[in-house]
């Protein structure tokens, strides 16, 4: 705000702050806000680390590879995140696998097929799906959706039960299978919105070239729109996955907690706990710092996991920008 390098272009001359009180104030305030944002994120990471590390050090079992979770005795902490990791990743990946094809289909419908006049209202309808709070999805999911999709689950059980992923498990509705479908609905709007945006940017020349070569509408979409939008779709899927990994309330309501010490099963027809639901389910019992630290450690792993997934999404987007601009 004080030292300015000598202006080297006309634009610089124009834009240069005049050093008035108003100029200095607004420059200071906006810089301070930006710095506050940086500081907040750094603080989040630091505080989670600071509170988690003592508990992780006191952990009597390997933190990343143990399936145990018993933190009631502060002198004998035994907690590992393997089960949480499995359930979190399984439910989120299932949600992504279900949501991406539908979202891409909707995005193609909105950008390529729907009449221009209808495209906007149609897009807002899909966006409204994102406006429904997650606790309501949870309530609806367990009371209404899960019983409705159970027959299909039973069919998967009886027909493909020999695949470990579809092996018979719980008889109740609180399974990864149920929450996977609900999560898919919840991440559908974000994947649709981003895919829509990239498909819309397909250069008209590419599309016209395909059509001029005699391609049908679908062949045009397949040869011009989809290849152009692919990095965007990958990024969108990753952002959706990040959203699903951290989703709390719907998971808390739907997924039934397994009995302690129950055997590991790879099947989606089992209950379980994700990082987020584990923390939320036990929020009322944060009494000793050691115990709280164990849950904060789980939160830290979730933070790192979502950070990595989102970083991949940003990397893919930025790389594409460098190519096209």
């Amino acid at each position, binding site marked *: 705000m004080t030292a300015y390098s000598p202006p080297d272009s006309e634009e610089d001359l124009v834009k240069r702050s005049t050093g008035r009180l108003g100029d200095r104030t607004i420059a200071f305030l906006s810089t301070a806000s930006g710095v*506050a*944002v940086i500081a907040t994120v750094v603080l989040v990471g630091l505080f989670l680390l600071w509170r988690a590390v003592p508990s992780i050090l006191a952990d009597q079992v390997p933190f990343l590879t143990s399936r145990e979770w018993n933190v009631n005795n502060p002198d004998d902490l035994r907690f590992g995140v393997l089960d949480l990791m499995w359930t979190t990743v399984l439910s989120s990946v299932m949600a992504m696998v279900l949501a991406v094809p539908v979202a891409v289909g909707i995005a193609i419908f909105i950008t390529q097929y729907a009449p221009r006049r209808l495209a906007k209202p149609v897009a807002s309808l899909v966006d*409204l799906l994102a406006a429904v709070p997650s606790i309501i999805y949870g*309530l609806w999911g367990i009371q209404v959706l899960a019983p409705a999709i159970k027959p299909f689950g039973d069919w998967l059980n009886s027909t493909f039960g020999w695949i470990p992923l579809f092996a018979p498990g719980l008889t109740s509705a609180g399974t990864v299978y149920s929450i996977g479908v609900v999560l898919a609905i919840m991440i559908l709007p974000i994947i649709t919105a981003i895919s829509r945006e990239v498909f819309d940017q397909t250069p008209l020349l590419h599309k016209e070239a395909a059509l001029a070569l005699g391609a049908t509408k679908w062949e045009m979409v397949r040869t011009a729109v989809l290849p152009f939008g692919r990095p965007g779709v990958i990024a969108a899927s990753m952002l959706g996955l990040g959203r699903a990994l951290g989703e709390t*309330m719907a998971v808390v309501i739907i997924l039934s907690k397994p009995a302690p010490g129950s055997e590991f099963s790879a099947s989606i027809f089992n209950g379980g706990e994700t990082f987020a639901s584990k923390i939320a389910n036990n929020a009322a019992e944060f009494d000793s710092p050691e115990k709280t630290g164990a849950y904060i450690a789980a939160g830290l792993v979730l933070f790192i996991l979502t950070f990595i997934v989102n970083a991949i999404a940003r990397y893919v987007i930025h790389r594409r920008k460098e190519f096209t601009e």
Partner: protein
Amino acid sequence: MSVTTQTKGGPGPASALTPVHGRRRFVDRSMRVLVFLAFLLALIPLVWVLWITISRGIALVVQPEWWTSSMRNVGPNDFGGGAAAAIQGTLTQAAIATVIAVPIGVLTGIYLVEYQEKPLVKPISFMTDVLTGIPSIVSGLFIYALFITTFGFSRMGFLVALALTLLMIPVIIRGTEEMLKIVPNDLREASYALGVPRYRTILKVVLPTAMSGIITTIMLGVARIMGETAPLLILVGYTASLNPNPFTGEQAALPLMINVERGNPLPPGQERAWAAALTLILLVMVLNIGARFIGRYSGIKR
């Protein structure tokens, strides 16, 4: 669409193209149907959720007492009850979060667009992305680790508002940034050419032009945080009574009320859970639709 009609009826030497038929035509038509079906498929859960919530919650929501009384002295067996305490808690917490998040978010957005030559633009933009990705439970856990474990505060509504602030800030930054970016540069240059200093250009030219878009963003941000439940579970206790003070004791909120009443298997509890859900959806939808309305009928035309 145009292609099929052009190529289909192109007999004679004028058209070098063979008519599209057989497998290609079949695939083309099926894909057209499929993408439309994908859209219909997305509408099913939307209509279904709204229908269930409305049909199960409407009976209670249309009663005036629902909006005016709290759950105080309403037993699990009693029908009726009211959401006044929960609505009041949700609105208070959302208001506090908005008051903190809006200045920080808008000012950071201004920094990112109007001060593009400054060195912090890249790190701030990166950190905003990180903040966007933070799950709400982690934000609640951070506030817990900072204020309750470290500073020894007790659970209260204000801490929820702080966790919600963290979730709202990136939404406002990105929205403001987007809106400021579509303000035509001609406007800024015209202002500078008249000798107007930079801060007056920002305050009197750029911000008013982008204002409707920023308001839309704020409303969408508020709608997003009002339905958040995870920070509430960690940072505040539920109470049946009205507590207007977010700085002491337990405070109700709509998501918490849904969560408590859903645990009551008796019909009155289930009815209250769905009525609270409907109330929450109404609040969120009013904000959403209002935001879209403002966004569409005013401001810069892209």
